[in-house]
């Protein structure tokens, strides 16, 4: 059964459809194209530069479906001229869930693709990070109809979008220590130069890249707006040489490459491997418990909830097809991404996510950007030393926490921190609430309503407990 993707409606040249999984096969992604768009994609697929990009894994693998293919027939029946199929990505993510280094790598990919295109006489007609998804720690460009032949002297119309959605969010983090995730989550079109200019006031406006890509565009836009806009001229009347365009792209690439999240406030979680409260033996037993059950189940998709810098994501990644590692601390997630990328651990997708406030449905009809919990259910979830944070810091009752875990319909490994553990005591120290429902007995009682406890192991002299939970009344995969 084909279903139209909720986020694929802006470009009239095509539409993405998802084909529901059939047995062991995953979801298939097909795209209906208009006749002109199909002709463009056909030319694109024949271009040597595009073959190189495909071979490098920079763009999603794409092929035309035979007109006799039942899926193509279904797509054509919906009014399209022809259909292409793309390799499906493992797990959809949005830029407001990426740590700094992921957004930076996505920006560099965008610039690399565009420079490659321009040299070959093509152009990318837009510049949004929503066109980039992740094959583990490698960014992949997925919006093939964005490639269009460049008319002679055509200028880059995506510059403003690139600045709003890549460059300015990166500069806000790098220069001012402002995390980009909340800004991009609340403004899906990014942060325009005129708005960004308000952050870069006083001497801040002289920070690297700000005068040229924030202050100057903001001034010109403001001036242009005050004069009532620009008289409509043929696009061909606005010409830019290939050299000037490549020079601008080179300038942007150098700027983005030099950005680093230097002023972000230091985070304790980014140093978790050195600062955790276990002795060596307990920590090794905990790792062995997780590895044993992950290796027995070999999950296709595993969520590591509260992953920190990914110690357990890496362990489970050895036995899983894909691990989505979630944590609310952007610095810890940034460390995880960079280490996984450098270690070539290609099946980990690190995301910044506050589990007390996960990404909602956004955009048109609330369906353009799917909410986190509705994208793809995991087969297994790790919830290690997280429950007490959600209970104390986010005030979520234990019963709701266990119900939420059950709603994942997955095998869950939980680590419960007892009230006598020093970390719980520290967390609750200055709270007036006594969290009466947060007891080992009540937790176990809630768990037993929804799960079967398949295995358990005490840690730290009984102050903590590891539990392997299987949902009740559910066939296991």
């Amino acid at each position: 059964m084909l279903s139209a993707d909720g986020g694929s409606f802006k470009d009239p040249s095509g539409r993405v459809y998802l084909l529901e999984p059939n047995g062991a096969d995953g979801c298939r992604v097909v795209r209906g194209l208009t006749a002109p768009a199909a002709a463009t994609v056909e030319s694109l697929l024949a271009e040597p530069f595009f073959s190189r990009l495909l071979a490098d894994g920079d763009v999603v693998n794409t092929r035309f479906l035979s007109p006799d293919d039942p899926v193509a027939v279904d797509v054509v029946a919906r009014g399209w001229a022809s259909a292409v199929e793309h390799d499906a990505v493992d797990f959809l993510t949005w830029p407001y869930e990426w740590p700094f280094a992921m957004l930076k790598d996505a920006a560099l990919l965008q610039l690399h693709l565009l420079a490659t295109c321009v040299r070959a006489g093509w152009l990318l007609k837009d510049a949004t990070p929503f066109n980039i998804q992740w094959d583990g720690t490698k960014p992949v460009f997925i919006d093939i109809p964005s490639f269009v032949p460049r008319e002679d002297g055509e200028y880059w119309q995506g510059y403003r979008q690139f600045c709003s959605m890549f460059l300015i969010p990166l500069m806000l983090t790098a220069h001012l220590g402002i995390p980009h995730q909340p800004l991009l989550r609340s403004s899906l079109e990014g942060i325009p130069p005129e708005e960004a200019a308000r952050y870069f006031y006083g001497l801040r406006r002289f920070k690297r890249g700000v005068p040229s890509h924030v202050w100057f565009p903001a001034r010109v836009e403001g001036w242009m707006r005050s004069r009532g806009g620009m008289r409509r001229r043929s696009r061909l009347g606005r010409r830019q040489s290939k050299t000037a365009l490549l020079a601008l792209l080179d300038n942007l690439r150098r700027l983005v490459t030099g950005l680093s999240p230097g002023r972000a406030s230091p985070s304790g979680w980014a140093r978790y491997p050195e600062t955790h409260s276990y002795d060596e033996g307990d920590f090794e037993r905990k790792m062995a418990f997780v590895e044993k059950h992950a290796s027995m189940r070999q999950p296709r998709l595993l969520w590591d909830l509260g992953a920190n810098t990914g110690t357990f994501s890496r362990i489970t990644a050895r036995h899983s097809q894909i691990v989505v590692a979630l944590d609310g601390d952007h610095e810890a997630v940034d460390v995880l991404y960079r280490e996984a990328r450098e270690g070539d651990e290609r099946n980990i997708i690190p995301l910044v996510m506050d589990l007390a406030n996960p990404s909602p449905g956004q955009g048109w009809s609330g369906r353009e950007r799917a909410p986190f919990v509705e994208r793809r259910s995991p087969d297994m979830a790790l919830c290690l030393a997280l429950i007490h944070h959600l209970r104390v810091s986010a005030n979520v009752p234990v019963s709701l926490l266990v119900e939420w875990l059950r709603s994942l319909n997955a095998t869950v490994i939980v680590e419960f921190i007892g009230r006598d553990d020093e970390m719980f005591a520290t967390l609750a120290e200055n709270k007036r609430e006594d969290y009466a429902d947060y007891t080992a007995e009540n937790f176990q009682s809630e768990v037993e309503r929804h799960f079967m406890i398949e295995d358990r192991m005490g840690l730290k002299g009984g102050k903590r407990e590891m539990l392997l939970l299987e949902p009740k009344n559910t066939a296991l995969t």
Partner: protein
Amino acid sequence: MSSPLLLVLASACAWPLAAFACGDADVTSAAAGDVEVLLAYIDPGVAGFVIVAVLGFISSMGYLARSYIARAKQWLFGHSEVGTDDGADGEATVDGDADSEKENC
């Protein structure tokens, strides 16, 4: 590129370009009392061409300079390693685009 001096240059370049792009008649029609309404209809990206043109022009000075320096080094020392410092997109020094199009800049 980000030095204030270059921005002054950029600003100086931008106004004539913008004026050229705007023309006279349409500008005055927007200033006749209905500006509040019109502003909401103006595409915020309308200045895109001016901005890209100015920044592209300024960037290309450094870009071409690097290209010529790299070619000079290549000619003097007879090897091409100088072209690699631009990373993945090292076109400024190795692919000849800059040379062939410099007259359009």
